[in-house]
């Protein structure tokens, strides 16, 4: 039996968030919620001003979420992953509260707990979506017991780092390679994990619930095409007056060149 582990070379992460949307699509996670994340730590000496740390369910050994589940809907599988049987999950939220990494959330569509399952539920046997799309190959996934696998190779040759929330006693299997920031997470609840929390300036922006808009949009566009009554008319919107500036003076060349857009 395989023993799955995800290793992450977080120094290569540039926070493009391809992993997040790839996971949302593959696993039908509502936009705005996410099974994986990228933690940003401001750092003036880092080349891009931040250190980035991608993460997801740590697939811990002896996981606290499993201990917290009243219906045994979640368990540590012999392949190394922590699994959820949604047919047994009653959506009580105990596991969500018990996870010190905030890797779990209540999926509003299914009403059950949700988290990373290495894409085994959606696309069994395939490379997890986050691993497949990463432009810098910073997530490495595979069977750690297979000496020929890439993951076994990096685990054998590079310094493993396990990021642990203080005093949580967690035993994560997700392994960072050589260096990562932060190495220790604060005690108690860390930041929550909606995608909103991963946006720069998240605190400054009023989140206005675009997701709901999408749900209603179908009706909205039908309205545009088949409204019940003709609205009072208004002239086509005119742009606010602009001040004429440099008028076109020189004759330019418009040689076609090799640009698409």
């Amino acid at each position, binding site marked *: 039996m395989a023993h799955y582990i995800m290793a992450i070379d977080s120094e290569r992460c*540039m926070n493009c968030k391809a992993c997040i949307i790839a996971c949302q699509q593959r696993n039908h996670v509502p936009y705005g919620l996410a099974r994986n994340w990228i933690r940003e730590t401001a750092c003036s000496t880092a080349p891009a001003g931040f250190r980035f740390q991608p993460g997801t369910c740590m697939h811990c050994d002896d996981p606290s979420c499993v201990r917290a589940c009243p219906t045994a809907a979640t368990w540590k599988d012999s392949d190394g992953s922590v699994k959820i049987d949604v047919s047994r999950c009653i959506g009580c939220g105990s596991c969500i509260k018990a996870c010190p990494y905030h890797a779990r959330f209540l999926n509003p569509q299914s009403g059950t707990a949700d988290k990373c399952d290495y894409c085994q539920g959606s696309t069994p046997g395939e490379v997890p979506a986050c691993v497949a799309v990463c432009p810098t190959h910073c997530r490495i996934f595979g069977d750690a017991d297979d000496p020929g696998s890439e993951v076994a190779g990096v685990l054998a040759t590079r310094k493993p780092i396990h990021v642990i929330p203080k005093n949580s006693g967690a035993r994560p299997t997700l392994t960072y390679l050589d260096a990562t920031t932060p190495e220790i997470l604060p005690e108690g609840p860390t930041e929550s994990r909606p995608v909103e929390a991963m946006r720069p300036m998240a605190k400054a922006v009023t989140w206005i*619930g675009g997701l709901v*808009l999408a749900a209603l949009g179908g009706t909205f566009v039908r309205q545009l095409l088949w*409204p019940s009554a003709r609205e009072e008319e208004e002239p086509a919107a005119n742009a606010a007056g602009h001040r004429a500036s440099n008028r076109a003076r020189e004759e330019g060349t418009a040689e076609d060149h090799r640009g698409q857009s």
Partner: protein
Amino acid sequence: MQDAYSRRNFLKLSAALLAGGAAIAGSGTRAEAIGHVAGPAQRVFEIKGYCPFCQVRCTYKARVQGGRIVSLTGDADNYWTGGAMCPKGMSMVELVNSPYRITEPMYHEANGSWRRISYREAVGMVADRMKDVVQRHGDKAGNRVAMTMPLWDCLESEVAALMALRTVGCVQALPPGETCVSTASNMLGDMLGVNSGTTQVDDICNARTLVLWGANVSDLYPPYTRWLAKTREQGVKIVYVDPRKTRTSMWCSQQLRPVPGTDGMLALGAIAYILNKGAYNEERARFQIEDFDNLKPQSASATMDKVASITGISEEELGTFYETLAASERTIVWLGGSLSRQSNGIGTVRSIILLQALRDNLIGQGKGMLTFQSGKPGGIDELVDHFFGENATPKLNFRRIRLAMEKGRLDILFLNSSYRRYPDARGVRKAIEKVPFVVHMGFFLDEESEVSTLFIPAAFGPESAGCGYGNENQLAWREQIVRAPGSCVPAWQFYRDVGRLVDPRRYPDFEGPEDICRMMQAHVPSWKGITMERLKASSTLVWPIYEQGAAERKGTVFSEGRLLTPSGKMRVQDRVFGGINRWTYPKGHPLGRKASKDFPLILLQGKQLWHWQQTLTNFTHSMGQFSNGRFVQVHPKTAAGLGLQEGDRVLLETAVGGLEALVEISENVRPDFVFTPANCCRTTPVRENCSPSICDILPNSWDRISAQHNGTGCRLRKI
């Protein structure tokens, strides 16, 4: 009763929905997955496609279930991407099923309301207008019609559209890159004989030094970061020239952060340094530079102290950079688009190309120039000419077309994509409003629909087959993945149907992109080896291939050991563009000669990783979840001076207008400039992506080739 709606209705609905959304989201309990969830019994198919956005042109495998795309995964067989994709590309899953999409043709009544019409009616209406223009203007009709590109779905759509224009003698199809890479493209063409990159991205691993000259690779072409990473691992020195710290900074051993708009002086200084040091092979330099003797006098004034004072880079840092250039045996320079977006871009790009020639860094492996948004397989014009005869009419640039519109001399405008890419977008809009018949092929009720007479609902790429092309001159074939909803049609179909009605005698007969592709293979020599079978079997295929079965051509274009200009050389003193010795700041730059003291900060705008231009991605929630609408990045010192705090609302103003923005305080910008994203649009229902276009407040400044987007003066006022 006629189907109709008004813009007010649209706004009211938007407002109502936004309010409802806010209330519900506030409770934190509701959210919907936008992707399609099919029943478990439905089989999953994997079909290859490619992303329509940037020129990396990532190929992907679409998982299709129940006739809908459920997810995309990058194509691991793609040599250029290695299977990576960026978030933008994946937003296609949402776009094809977008609830905001308009799927029926509509006619814009004079009173502002829309009337739904049939596709046949719409095509007939366009054809009648085209015939009418010919009737009234005879052989002058061609210049009364114009089209803005790109067309979103495939290369064949472009062919079909260009042929439709030719039915009335028109060649005025405006390349989108005119406002992003045109200066670089034209100067490369002029000086090297090839108007795109001279080598391919994988060649950077063969260089000793890679200079990313304003080339923010990781934000613009995220999957190409793998090439940067590989290059670094192989010990290639990467120097990044960009005033802003970005994701690309992560891969570099040195970053120079010049005052925006002063790159030209940086390049001139490098030429002067190398000449003074004698760090060049004169015979090789003369082999490539016709008037080599002009180089010294024209760069002599760029002394180290002068360059340092203009660029704001210390002499020590300059020394390190110049020494790297002087010592490197093989250097590739990757030109960023921003250099083309400043009105001193011509001189800047010319200096950089001359610098490469001086050091003999153009011809050979691990040498050359790379660009963004280049790589367009040739042959399209050849095919069009095959059917419509050689074209003798000069192509006009957008400035001339705008003038024609303002003077009422344009009768039909095919408005594909966005007019808001041009600076002084409000002025552009006014000009467009003077065109009596504007056809917008698009997806949403956006700014373009507002100014159009006719809305034709377009198909997204996955809804039609066809070829895409990318930065490496590579082609990728895509089968139709899903059916287009309603009356949405691919652009090739619309333009074919119009073309056939206007000139059934000349407009060629084809059923779809595959037929056009076969025509290319039959009539264009450089396509002969690009057979359908080979295209379909390959992840990507690099154009040109002159013979069936021949290998793809990779690496430098100078395979004959000389430049591709007629003389095999370039000039320092150009007959049209002059020399490189007249360096000035970009127009309206706060440090320029005629600068206004009222606008002391330099304005820079640019792409954000998860957005493409001002159009499609702005209409997606999947990208909205990462966005902050219109923000300005401000250095802590600037913020302190203006009393601004993170999250403050400010008015970002230039000499021609202002717009609201949120303040983000960051040391990634310098104290003398502010940065704001290029993507936002005013009409999107997704609040996080919503703001008037940045081009609304850019003055209408051009150099002799392209429009200026960066470097103008601005100010911030707290509101």
